[in-house]
């Protein structure tokens, strides 16, 4: 355990000096505040408190930003050690590869949690300032924080896996960008195209829920919208969120980090220094 903690402390210090902590926190705070200001309009129509509406907007933001920050922090984790030539020495120490990854994960997850908490916290403060009844939205906010951290862990694990597979930082960066585009942007577009062409047939009713649950970003969105009961404010996904039971999206959100990290450890074990 002390080996994991020491690795985490070192990784956190490196991230702090490379300005990753500052960049992640600033990114989340700026975007969350912009959303809090812009999301003020629909309150009257929905009849929900200000914070619940903002949580719905933050969900859409987190789906893009959290995976991006996670991949940016993780793509260099193993490929960078290979390129700097620090990996062979590290692997002669009495520390297992899983422990090395656990230490890195702990540090990166701490940074991500810090960024998410700062961003959502700023938005929440803005919500309370505009609408004192916002306390009703607090459970939704806490759910959003927790599921954002799990979403981040999923993409951190995927980033480590890609980093181990690529073995070069430039290659790992390319793969990470590809994964982000594929999982967060293109996946939904393809599903949308299929649903439109299917016209409400078997594909839409049978396969779509599984397709949404199979993608950690979509499962995250479903979980937060279904749980928040404010899906009307987020539009689009609202129908799907209502059709899929909450426990299913919760399970997907909780299982993905485990799966991604197991894959990352397996990929790291295959790296020969």
């Amino acid at each position, binding site marked *: 355990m*002390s*080996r994991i*903690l*020491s*690795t985490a*402390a*070192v990784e956190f*210090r*490196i991230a702090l*000096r*490379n300005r990753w902590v500052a960049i992640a926190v600033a990114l989340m705070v700026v975007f969350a505040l912009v959303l809090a200001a812009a999301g003020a309009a629909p309150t009257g129509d929905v009849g929900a408190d200000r914070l619940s509406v903002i949580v719905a907007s933050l969900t859409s933001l987190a789906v893009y930003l959290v995976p991006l920050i996670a991949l940016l922090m993780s793509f260099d984790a193993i490929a960078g050690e290979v390129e*700097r*030539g*620090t990996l*062979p*020495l590290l*692997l*002669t*120490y*009495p*520390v*297992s590869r899983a422990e090395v990854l656990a230490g890195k994960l702990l540090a990166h997850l701490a940074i991500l949690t810090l960024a998410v908490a700062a961003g959502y916290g700023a938005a929440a403060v803005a919500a309370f300032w505009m609408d004192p009844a916002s306390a009703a939205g607090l459970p939704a906010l806490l759910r959003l924080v927790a599921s954002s951290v799990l979403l981040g862990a999923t993409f951190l694990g995927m980033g480590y896996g890609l980093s181990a597979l690529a073995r070069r930082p430039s290659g790992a960066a390319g793969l990470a960008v590809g994964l982000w585009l594929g999982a967060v942007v293109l996946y939904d577009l393809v599903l949308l195209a299929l649903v439109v062409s299917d016209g409400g047939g078997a594909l839409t009713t049978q396969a779509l829920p599984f397709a949404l649950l199979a993608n950690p970003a979509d499962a995250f969105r479903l979980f937060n919208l279904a749980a928040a009961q404010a899906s009307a404010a987020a539009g689009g996904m609202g129908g799907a969120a209502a059709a899929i039971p909450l426990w299913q999206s919760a399970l997907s959100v909780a299982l993905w980090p485990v799966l991604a990290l197991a894959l990352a450890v397996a990929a790291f074990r295959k790296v*020969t*220094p």
Partner: protein
Amino acid sequence: MTSTLTISRLTKRFTGVEALCDVSLTVEPGQRVALLGHNGAGKSTMMKIILGLIPFDSGEVTVCGAAPGSAAARAQVAYLPENAAFHPALTGEEQIRHYLSLRGEKPAQALELLARVGLDHAAKRRIGTYSKGMRQRVGLAQALIGKPRLLVLDEPTSGLDPVSRRDFYALLDGLAAGGTAILLSSHALTEVEARTDRILILSDGRLRAQGTLADLRRAAALPVAISVAPAPGQKEVLATALPMARANGDGRLHLDCAQGDKLAVLARITGLPQVADLEVIPPSLEDIYSHFSQRDGQ
């Protein structure tokens, strides 16, 4: 007492190329062993196999009684890679504290370790600002952590100035006296001759020779060079008396003779009245090294 490192009939192939072929050796506790070979001879490959970083094809390797790379072996083996590298954003002290934690030692020893390699003055500076020699010292400091039973050093003195080299070998002597077995690689026989107990010469993945420097000298049986200075005006007479000698432009006569004939030849030369002086030049360390590393007509 059991050997710290035992290798028998080790063979390693890289996609068709034989990097190591049928290598057998042992390293005893407290022994300082130098592994010599030119680039690509298989030194680094052998070290990586001993450390468990890469697998091997056949043979047996036992490190401190365990399989290479196993948790038991890693706990007792320290390594200094060629061109030791560290994260540039960390200070020397932070890096060593981390390595101490990974070995289950107290991080507070970091400054003391850095002082042992003469780096305590730069402990609070980032490694990114260090020179190559300073990074090499950080590498050495981490190799001293705990009390390793086997120290594997890949060209440890590259990048060190002559004074640092002497300090470095003094550190090794102290460790060896405490029972640590040391395996270090080098390009130069001249550097390791006085500082190691045994020398292994590796060439094209095969172990060509092993033993003390005296053993190698004997086994190589290289000719001894003798240089004779004639008395004034006696050069022509001397040249006829020594028909096998060559005359160089320096006015002296030069001849080579086998180790076994040395005394007989010297007796003959010293018996000649035309000789003013003579010098016996034994084969140099470079000659011995190239004799072993370039056998098989290369």
